[in-house]
């Protein structure tokens, strides 16, 4: 019993150390040898451009539901003119960064783990090493750079589409004054809100690339190893995003 507990503790501390080292070395490599711009662009296309559709779709519906819920709540206080502010602040400060990151985790984070995991089990990573090439430079750093650039951009698109989703429901459907919707928003939203949203999505990009690459890089054996790594990657990334979000909010508030 004590032995088993010790074994679990040792292995989790070792995993944690390895993951920490992985993050540290990745950042070091980004500074030292960022890799080919073509590779970074290719990854941005994959993580960023190809996530656009799902981001726009989720953003529109999130904004629309915020419009509905916000209207329902605000009419109780007779202040449905504040709908624009409510929608914009919830999106910019919180839902934009978090939902965009969760969508990208499901779409790109899992694919990153699967891709690197398959390269691991088919010895393609070993092949890079035997050519005296650092696998981090070819596989890991381009994904890190692409993720930390793409996430804030996707988040910005999420915010804008969401705000118009709220406008569609609030103004066009439920008849909130269109001037009030945008005027109140402009008055209430300050740059600080936007910065904090960007800081969040920047760090979420780092988390997605970190866990996605790390889990793939140390995938176990065979197809089962890769599938396990992919599942763990998505679950761990999502949990970390939410935990880190709370931490960051409490600091940035």
């Amino acid at each position: 019993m004590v032995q088993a507990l010790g074994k679990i503790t040792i292995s989790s501390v070792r995993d944690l150390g390895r993951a920490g080292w992985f993050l540290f070395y990745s950042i070091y490599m980004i500074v030292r040898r960022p890799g080919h711009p073509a590779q970074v662009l290719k990854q941005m296309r994959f993580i960023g451009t190809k996530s656009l559709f799902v981001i726009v779709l989720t953003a529109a519906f999130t904004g629309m539901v915020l419009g509905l819920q916000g209207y329902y709540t605000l009419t109780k206080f007779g202040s449905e003119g504040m709908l624009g502010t409510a929608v914009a602040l919830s999106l910019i400060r919180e839902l934009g960064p978090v939902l965009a990151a969760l969508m990208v985790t499901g779409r790109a984070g899992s694919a990153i783990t699967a891709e690197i995991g398959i390269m691991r089990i088919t010895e393609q990573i070993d092949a890079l090493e035997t050519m005296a090439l650092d696998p981090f430079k070819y596989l890991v750093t381009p994904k890190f750079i692409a993720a930390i650039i793409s996430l804030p951009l996707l988040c910005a698109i999420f915010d804008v589409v969401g705000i118009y989703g709220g406008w569609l429901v609030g103004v066009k459907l439920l008849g909130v004054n269109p001037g009030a919707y945008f005027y109140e928003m402009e008055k209430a939203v300050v740059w600080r809100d936007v910065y904090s949203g960007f800081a969040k999505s920047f760090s979420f990009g780092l988390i997605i690339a970190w866990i996605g690459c790390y889990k793939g890089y140390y995938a176990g054996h065979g197809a089962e190893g890769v599938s396990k790594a992919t599942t763990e990657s998505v679950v761990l990334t999502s949990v970390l995003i939410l935990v880190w979000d709370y931490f960051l909010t409490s600091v940035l508030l």
Partner: protein
Amino acid sequence: MIILRNVNKSFGSQKVLDDLNLEIPEGKITAIIGPSGEGKSVLLKHLIGLLQPDSGQVEVDGESIVGLRRSRLNLIREKFGMLFQNVALFDSMTVFENVAFPLHEKTDLGPGEIRERVLSALEEVGLKNIENKYPDELSGGMKKRVGLARAVVLNPKIILFDEPTTGLDPIIKSAIHQLIKDTHQKFGFTAVIVSHEIPDIFDVAQNVAMLYKGKILRQGSPSEIKNSDHPAVRQFISGSLDGPIRLI
């Protein structure tokens, strides 16, 4: 020259290499033979630092590669080319890109020169007009030959072959053996081949070492190994079921 001294390696409770000693002579083709699952690939990966021994030394041209920093290890790895058991071609790249990759990364050659060298390397392994195909569109034998082209394209000093002919038909097998012999004659590299191809490998190699129970049981010229009186060596070469080597 590659020297292994008292190398030990275990995976969990399973001891794979047990106080192993081996010298791989420079400029010759050395074959490592032995029953399946005895750790021949593990031994090969120690030579290039893909695996590190639990204890013992691995020396390449007089320099120990155990516990070396990555930058230093990479300098030594530049002497090597390696053909993996499963070939390990980059599956998101075409055949051309696979063979061109080491040239792009390690030389200053222009696109024209790279193209020339890739096509001539592919032609040397008997492949034409497949450079735009992806690895999963190729047969096993073709993949092995692309892997071979990728391993030799930088003219390395040392080439490691992990079962270059396993699973191939007899004609392609002979062709690949011939190819290794011819290119060796032309460039004079040091080669280490892990192989099960008995007796063909005796015509290819100049030096044969048999790995058994984590140690090098016998090492010598092909004729010395063929005429060895060690019961395990005799059993392995004859493929007999009777002898010290047990299947289970």
